[in-house]
């Protein structure tokens, strides 16, 4: 077995990052693109998934010999940490949703969510005993690392395969949800909340539901990411990261999976991760700063010149079901008879 080097290492890394970003973008697209719910705390859900997946794989805190401290710590077999992480994402969506999804004007709501994200970072940094503070949790063992050789190139491709399976599952799920009656209700809420309420939709329930589903998807993306890079710290989930996903959706096109895919390739994968693999052209601070300046400029430019994104959402026209047509026809006849 050969060790992953050169182009294969780059390809494996980029593909896993792409998969993670795609999962996250599909989740955010369901929340914002389909349901119109603003979640500026999206990265918190990815972070929660990553921390939980790490905690359920890394073993107890004491086993590291005082190198890092955290609450809990188990070494569950492979698929379980990802599963627990996904469930956690759904569970923490409820309290965060209760604070942030109050009936507030949408920009006020967005500000509240941003504040939630800032608070989460500060709490983790201020209490080093909780999740090892700003140093973060490291040495997360790779999934199935005891059975296979985790530094082999075959393992790398296996990980790409695992990521792809997760992408497929999430893709099928969000596509089914978007087409379902629930998806139609979400779009109705997005387009005109007052009308949605008037026709009897429970918008609070709809909002919380998309928040929970999107939270679970975000957490899964975090779990896949943390087991690949084997470490996770507050630097990885500062609030601008959420903004990178929003940029991806606006660039790609809101409300459709193709847009989410194109956005995931262009913004978080090529612009944020791909650039770090290139030979450095300037000192690291300047190139890091420049990336975010470029993201900021790109989003302003897209909102001005092409707000619908590269792939605009297709308008769904729903044909009236047959019985409606029949009812209309009979109504017509009854009128003629009368």
């Amino acid at each position, binding site marked *: 077995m050969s060790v992953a080097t050169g182009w294969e290492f780059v390809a494996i890394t980029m593909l896993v990052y792409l998969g993670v970003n795609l999962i996250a973008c599909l989740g955010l697209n369901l929340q914002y693109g389909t349901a119109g719910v603003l979640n500026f705390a999206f990265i918190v859900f990815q972070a929660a998934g990553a921390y939980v997946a790490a905690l359920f794989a890394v073993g107890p805190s004491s086993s590291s010999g005082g190198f890092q401290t955290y609450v809990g710590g188990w070494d569950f077999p492979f698929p379980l940490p990802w599963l627990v992480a996904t469930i956690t994402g759904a569970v923490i969506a409820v309290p965060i949703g209760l*604070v942030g999804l109050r009936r*507030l004007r*949408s920009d006020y709501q967005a500000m509240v969510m941003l504040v939630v994200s800032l608070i989460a970072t500060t709490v983790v940094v201020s209490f080093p005993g909780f999740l090892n503070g700003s140093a973060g949790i490291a040495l997360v063992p790779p999934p199935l690392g005891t059975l296979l050789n985790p530094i082999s190139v075959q393992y790398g491709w296996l990980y790409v395969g695992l990521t792809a399976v997760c992408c497929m599952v999430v893709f099928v799920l969000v596509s089914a949800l978007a087409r379902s009656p629930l998806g139609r209700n979400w779009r109705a809420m997005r387009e005109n909340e007052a009308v949605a309420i008037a026709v009897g939709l429970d918008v609070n329930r709809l909002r919380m539901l998309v928040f929970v589903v999107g939270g679970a998807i975000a957490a899964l993306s975090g779990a896949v990411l943390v087991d690949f890079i084997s470490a996770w710290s507050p630097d990885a989930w500062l609030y601008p990261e959420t903004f990178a996903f929003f940029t991806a959706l606006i660039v790609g096109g809101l409300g459709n999976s193709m847009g989410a895919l194109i956005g995931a390739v262009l913004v978080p994968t090529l612009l944020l991760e791909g650039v770090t693999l290139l030979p450095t052209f300037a000192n690291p601070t300047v190139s*890091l700063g420049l990336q*975010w*300046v470029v*993201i900021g400029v790109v989003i302003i430019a897209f*909102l001005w010149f092409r707000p619908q994104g590269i792939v605009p959402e297709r308008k769904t026209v729903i044909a009236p079901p047959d019985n409606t047509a029949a009812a209309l026809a009979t109504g017509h006849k009854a009128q003629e008879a009368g």
Partner: protein
Amino acid sequence: MNQLVLIVGSGLITAALLAVAGVGFTLQFSVTNVLNIAYGSVMGAAAFAAYEVNKAGANLWVSGLVAAATGAMLSLAMNRGVFKPFERRRAGVFTLIILSLAISLILDNVVLMVGGPFFFSYKQLGQASVRIAGVGFPPSQVFIVGAAVVLMFAVHAMQKWTKLGKAMRATATNPELAKASGVRTGLVIDLAWLISGALCGLAGLFMGIIVGAFNASTGSSFLVPIIAAVVLGGIGESYGAMLGALTIGLVSEAAASIAGVSALKQLVAFAILIGMLLLRPQGIMSGTAAQRGLVR
């Protein structure tokens, strides 16, 4: 006794910073209707500009002027360059908040690129301490409390007794009606950005003095306590922001001092903010929030 003086003193110093920043934020929102997430970043950029002139040998008065001018010009440029053109196209509130976040990222990272990943501290702060009831406070921080009181009175006087203040309040309440009654709303909004931006810039200088050492992201990290003060008092209400700042300053210092854990300071601000959002998201003074339909 000494602990009480220390708590009240530190609380007032924090409150002074939050009040200046909060009144600027809330004035900006009430007149322009933009929730400006970039506010903390403008504070940071102004603090950095003041640091550059301070390093070059200017005293803190000149640095303060530079900070105020930086905040004012950046805010005006944001309105003219970004918010106003988008508002003309009838962009929604979500677009505006995403734009302000984009500007925030650009500003933070330009400061990072120019200044580097370092911490900056002002010079000539004075080493002596002012003793109040047996407790020593740095003179620059005592000065900040005085300056904040003067600034708050100036904002109050402007809003209450000047024609501009009246025009601002008219524009805030009903821009169409104000326009129809002969108020030049475009000019009033530009002036609101300038004045709130100047307050924001001064708050940046105060922040730099109080925290001692700041970096490119310190400004945006102050967004949470500022928003906490503003939301507690009632967003869009100047007196509400002052009240909120005073409450958060005193309560957070008291909690941190009594428990002996300084991390508690921020957490108390968070707890107040979250409790307020759950129980009364429109804040203590709810006029603007109700009028804008912020809370439905």
